[in-house]
């Protein structure tokens, strides 16, 4: 009899699923990412070229260059790390290539480029990719053994160490790096580059103040608002989400619950401060929430492995995102929330495994659930009180 479960590194697959190997899953992930990549190229390269607002062709195709250089850097770095760490096992160059291929080396670089500003300085980007790839991934043992999402490690490193450089365009020190050169001409009168940065500086919150400078909510849905390279379009993320869910690469429940919790939390807070339905819709459509929910929170290596665990993870992600975004000092909270929940991934997995041993909740497991729900409700209520 063939064994039902295989003993390998994460992502853990049933042997029934193993005909679709990790390679198939990663190919599907790349296909699922393609709407986001294509939209970001359309918005930041093609639209700029059509409108002719660029100073040099290099500036116009700069996002495209980062999209190529980023993955390439992380690929080469992984090759170097594997060469240093497994020198004795690798005899030929082709062995090295197979090792790197099994590590899916270009994904951290690609993700970091997609969640970074459009005109971010190249060395800032490459340093962050190096930190994400080497410290976030390879030092933990490579693909399948990292605790933290390597892309978010790199992005968090960028946010915390280059707080001065990250907002300044590489081409013009007076421009904000989140704006491409087309947006810089049309939205230059607005204080604060992205909707969330603007939101975090506002004292009075009204629809005219928050949404109107960037168009209307349809612009947010289509993604023609300023923001990081790949995160602006809700539509592209939804297309990717549907494809990946059909191919069963990601669990559709995670993005659904994540976004739903953020929606409910901001809806209640919005109703109390006298805002309409636009307020929660604005919150779930702006920033990296959709991108993070679809592509980052569902990452097979670092997120919990079972249904209950994923639901718990997604619920906590929702309230933590609202906490970091609207209560904390930073304009965006998705990356911080995901990296925080990565820490608790092991605890959630352990707890859920205990529940699953006999298939149902018994007396011993109830305290864990009660603790989880009370922490969840605590943050949920705290968010509302703080926003109001």
């Amino acid at each position: 009899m063939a064994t039902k479960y295989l003993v390998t590194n994460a992502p853990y697959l049933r042997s029934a699923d193993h005909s679709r190997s990790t390679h198939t899953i990663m190919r599907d992930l790349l296909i699922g990412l393609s709407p986001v990549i294509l939209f970001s190229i359309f918005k930041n390269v093609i639209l700029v070229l059509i409108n002719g607002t660029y100073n040099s062709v290099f500036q116009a195709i700069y996002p495209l260059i980062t999209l190529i250089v980023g993955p390439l850097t992380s690929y080469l770095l992984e090759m170097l790390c594997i060469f240093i760490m497994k020198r004795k096992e690798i005899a030929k160059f082709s062995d090295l290539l197979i090792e790197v291929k099994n590590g899916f080396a270009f994904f951290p670089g690609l993700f970091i480029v997609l969640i970074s500003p459009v005109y971010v300085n190249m060395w800032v980007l490459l340093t962050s990719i190096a930190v994400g790839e080497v410290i976030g991934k390879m030092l933990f043992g490579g693909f399948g053994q990292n605790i933290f999402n390597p892309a978010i490690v790199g992005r968090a490193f960028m946010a915390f160490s280059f707080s001065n450089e990250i907002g300044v365009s590489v081409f013009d020190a007076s421009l904000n790096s989140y704006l491409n050169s087309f947006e810089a001409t049309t939205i230059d009168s607005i204080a604060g580059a992205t909707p969330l940065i603007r939101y975090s500086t506002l004292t009075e919150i009204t629809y005219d103040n928050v949404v109107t400078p960037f168009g209307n909510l349809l612009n947010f849905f289509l993604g023609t608002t300023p923001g990081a390279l790949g995160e602006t379009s809700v539509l592209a993320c939804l297309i990717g989400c549907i494809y990946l869910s059909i191919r069963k690469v990601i669990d559709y429940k995670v993005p659904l619950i994540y976004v739903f919790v953020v929606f409910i939390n901001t809806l209640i807070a919005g109703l109390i401060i006298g805002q309409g339905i636009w307020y929660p819709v604005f919150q779930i459509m702006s920033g990296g929430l959709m991108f993070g929910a679809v592509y980052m929170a569902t990452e097979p290596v670092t997120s919990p492995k079972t249904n209950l665990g994923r639901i718990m993870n997604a619920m906590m992600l929702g309230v933590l995102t609202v906490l970091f975004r609207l209560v904390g000092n930073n304009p965006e909270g998705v990356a911080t929330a995901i990296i925080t929940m990565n820490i608790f991934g092991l605890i959630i997995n352990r707890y859920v495994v205990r529940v699953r041993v006999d298939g149902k909740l018994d007396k011993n497991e109830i305290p864990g659930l009660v603790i989880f729900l009370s922490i969840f409700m605590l943050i949920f209520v705290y968010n509302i009180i703080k926003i109001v």
Partner: protein
Amino acid sequence: MTKKENFLKGFINENPLFVLLLGTCPALAITTTLENALGMGIAFIFVLVMSNTIISLINSFKKLKELIQPVRIAVYIVIIASLVTIVEMLMQAYLPELYNSLGVFISLITVNCIVLGRAEAYASSNKVSDSVIDGISMGLGYTFALIIISLARELLGNGTITIWGNLVINLKGVFEFLHITPISFFTSSAGAFMVLGIILGIMQAIKNSKEAKKQELEKAKKEVK
């Protein structure tokens, strides 16, 4: 163990920070500049050598040793705390700037596990002369470790190397020449953790490769026999 081995052990083989992993708290907190690391190192060497001497002296009298045996930790702490107070007052009087930048971490030498650890593990059961050498060795090893961490952190995080007071090597020009800026992450405590972790990893990797070579040699010897 000869006196020379006793002196050299603190630098690499039994380095208090990199191998024994003691005293990491001040090592992560104060290593933002080389000056801080040097100041901390000097204060630390003084306290460690003096406490080793006094504790070894106390333990060399048999009756006194038996007398303090039940309360020896408290006695050691009292000795160390008085020494630290001396250092703190001297530093406040003669090096006020260093005193301000090291802050609470001078008084925290009292509870630094290296000092108490050497008192309990070495000085209480060895001769006075050996204990003094042990104190100097461990103190220099700790200072050496602090200097390495602070060099990496200050250079990467600030672009300068502050040796003492106004004696500053400014390398910001190199950063400007390369069109990059110092990475402020390394001046934060998270950066200190990262630097310490990477140094520990490198030390462990060197150790492992040395042991692997030793084993291969032994294998080869057995085969020859």
